[in-house]
């Protein structure tokens, strides 16, 4: 047993930086995928709905870790595509959480009152203008709380990359544990680090939500919980029971 020296702290802090980068990159990819797939899933052409629906079912049906193994080991061997580990991990996380996010986008867009679309038609807006100016601005504040949940799930999911040798927080923890032989302090410290990151993300999303709601003249409801994140939207099937109906 030995002390956790400054050098070892440095390993952990570098890990935090990798985790933060990974979270930001994969969240950006996931958001793009969620928007495209989520809108495509209520497209008027059945083939677009079918392809995006298949994407959704496949990527949320499989396990993120298995997908990561597949991208790390099968893509290079089977197809000759070798990605830098950080990007391979970003791809795996972004594609998986983008699939979950598409359900959030779809639900929020469908929850906008049909009369709003009718008002858009009455003013001769094109379908693209209706989406951009009327539907999305109203759906966006509704998306933020479920996106917050997904973002925390994504942050937790980034720990998987340590298995693939990416030097994130969890990877740093195993190095430090090997060096010092101390398990309890090391793992307690890094669990706290993850918790702080989750807390910061939630606060940030709360600010975003308040701004988004103010931007459409609403006031956000108060929440009294510690982190305030509700886990009611299951990760498997993000359809809230109230947003019924598959497609049209």
């Amino acid at each position, binding site marked *: 047993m030995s002390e956790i020296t400054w050098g070892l702290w440095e390993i952990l802090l570098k890990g935090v930086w990798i985790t933060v980068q990974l979270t930001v990159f994969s969240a950006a990819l996931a958001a793009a995928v969620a928007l495209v797939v989520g809108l495509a899933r209520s497209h008027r052409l059945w083939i677009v709905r079918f392809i995006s629906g298949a994407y959704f079912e496949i990527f949320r049906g499989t396990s993120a870790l*298995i997908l990561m193994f597949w991208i790390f080991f*099968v893509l290079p061997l089977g197809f000759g595509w070798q990605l830098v580990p950080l990007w391979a991990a970003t791809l795996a996380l972004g594609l998986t959480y983008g699939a979950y996010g598409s359900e959030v986008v779809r639900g929020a867009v469908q929850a906008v009152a049909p009369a709003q679309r009718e008002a858009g038609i009455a003013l001769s807006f094109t379908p693209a203008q209706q989406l951009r100016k009327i539907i999305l601005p109203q759906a966006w504040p509704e998306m933020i709380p479920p996106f917050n949940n997904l973002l925390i799930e994504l942050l937790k999911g980034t720990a998987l990359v340590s298995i693939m040798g990416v030097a994130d927080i969890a990877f740093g923890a195993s190095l430090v544990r090997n060096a010092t032989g101390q*398990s*309890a302090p090391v793992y307690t410290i*890094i669990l706290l680090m993850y918790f702080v990151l989750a807390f910061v993300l939630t606060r940030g999303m709360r600010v975003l939500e308040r701004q988004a709601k103010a931007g459409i003249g609403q006031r956000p409801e108060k929440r009294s*919980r510690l982190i305030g994140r509700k886990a009611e939207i299951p990760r498997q099937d993000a359809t809230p029971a109230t947003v019924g109906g598959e497609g049209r």
Partner: protein
Amino acid sequence: MNWDWSAVGDFMPMFWDGLLVTLQALVLGALLAFALGLVWAMAQRSGLAVVRWPVNVITEFVRNTPLLVQLFFLYYVLPEWGLTLSAMVTGVIGLGLHYSTYTAEVYRAGIDGVPAGQWEAATALSLPKSRTWGAVILPQAIRRVVPALGNYVIAMLKDTPMLFVIGVLEMLGEARQFASETFLTVEVFTVVGVAFIVISYPASLLMRALERRLVR
């Protein structure tokens, strides 16, 4: 791309072993999550702040930190505290504990969804607390939360591959072992990936059907 069907055939015996272990871990973990989640949910409604607060802190902490790291914690730290458990038992505890913090939220929502008049009626009839919970509130709450719980079981299924890191030979563990001996990486990881979709897609359809039947 080379695809070797005979490799798939060679892998199948190990695959079935892995699937069995995956399902065992899933069933035991889910039972633990269901039971422990109920304990958390009821404790969160306790009139005593000394009960409510620590439970809130623990569940928020566990829910907002990675299961993978929690598994390492249990695996390395429990023996230091003199509690030596098999990898499988450690894995089930980790999985069950992590997901109990989600099921607690589901129960909480279900209990909140029972109309206040039901509590008042139970009080008016002077039912003891145990009867109020056991005969009035929970039966109404559970019915509404079955689909949500089911969805978390599917989410747990997709997290079971993590157990290989502490040495549980579930599907992914078997696949890695087979791949390291034979180098038939493409086939085995694809088989395991497809297996997850084949299990979880019908399961999620089932949950959607249940949702339509039970929640309304």
